[in-house]
C-alpha cells in the first residue's frame, strides 16, 4: 500500500532526501493526507513548501491542474515540483 513521493530541485534539499514512501491508512492519499504525512514523517518545512502556491504536483508523470484534487493509490508516484529554472 505504498505511494512514492519524489522531491525535485530545492524541495529535495528541504526534505533532506530525494524521495519517500507513504502508506496512508485509508489506502488513498489525498491532499490533506499528503500535507499531514509530510509534516509528521518528513518535516514541517517540506509540508509548508508543498502548500506554497508555486509548488506543483504531478501524479504518475502528469501535472495536476489543481493539486488539491490529488488522489494517489498504491504504486502511484507523486512528485513535488518547485518553480523551474532551466537553460
Amino acid at each position: 500500500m505504498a505511494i512514492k513521493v519524489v522531491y525535485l530541485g530545492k524541495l529535495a534539499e528541504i526534505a533532506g532526501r530525494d524521495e519517500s514512501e507513504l502508506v496512508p491508512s485509508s489506502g488513498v492519499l489525498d491532499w490533506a493526507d499528503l500535507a499531514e504525512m509530510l509534516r509528521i514523517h518528513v518535516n514541517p518545512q517540506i509540508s509548508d513548501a508543498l502548500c506554497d502556491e508555486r509548488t506543483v504536483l504531478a501524479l504518475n508523470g502528469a501535472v495536476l491542474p489543481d493539486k488539491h484534487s490529488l488522489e494517489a493509490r498504491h504504486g502511484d508516484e507523486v512528485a513535488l515540483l518547485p518553480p523551474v529554472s532551466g537553460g
Partner: protein
Amino acid sequence: MFRDIRLIGAAFDPNSAVDALSAATPGAGGVATFTGKVRVTGGVEALELSHYEPLTLPGMEQLALQAEKRFDLLGLVIIHRVGRMNRGEPIVCVSAAAHHRRAAIDAVDFCMDHLKSAAWFWKRELRAGDWHWIEPRADDYADLARWDAK
C-alpha cells in the same frame, strides 16, 4: 522534418549537432542556433541541473511540436545538458533550419524562452563553495509572455 531532441548527461559538442541538422536539411536557406554555456567568469564554479524523467523529455518533445506548428521549419535540435557541469561547458543548444531566416531565428527564440522558464529543470550554482538554487529572472517570464500576445 529532422528532429533531434535530447537530454544529455555529459559534455556535448553543439557544432556536431548543428552540422548534422544542416546536412539533413538541404533545402534550408539558413540555420539559427543558440548555445547557452556556463560562464567562465563571474564566480560560478559549477552548475547542476536536475530534471524529472517522466516530465522533462516529454515536455521538450511537446515544445518541439509547438515550434514546428508555429514556424515553417525543416529541422529542429533541442539538446539540454543535465547533471553537474563545469565552467565553459554548453548547457543547452537549440538550432532550427528553415527556408527563411525569420522562421529559424524566431523558432530558436521561442524554444529558448520556453526552456528558460517553462521546462522541467531545476538549476543550482556553486559559488564560493555553496550551492544556490536559481529561479527564472523576471526578464525570463517577460520573454515567455511575448509569445502569448502574438
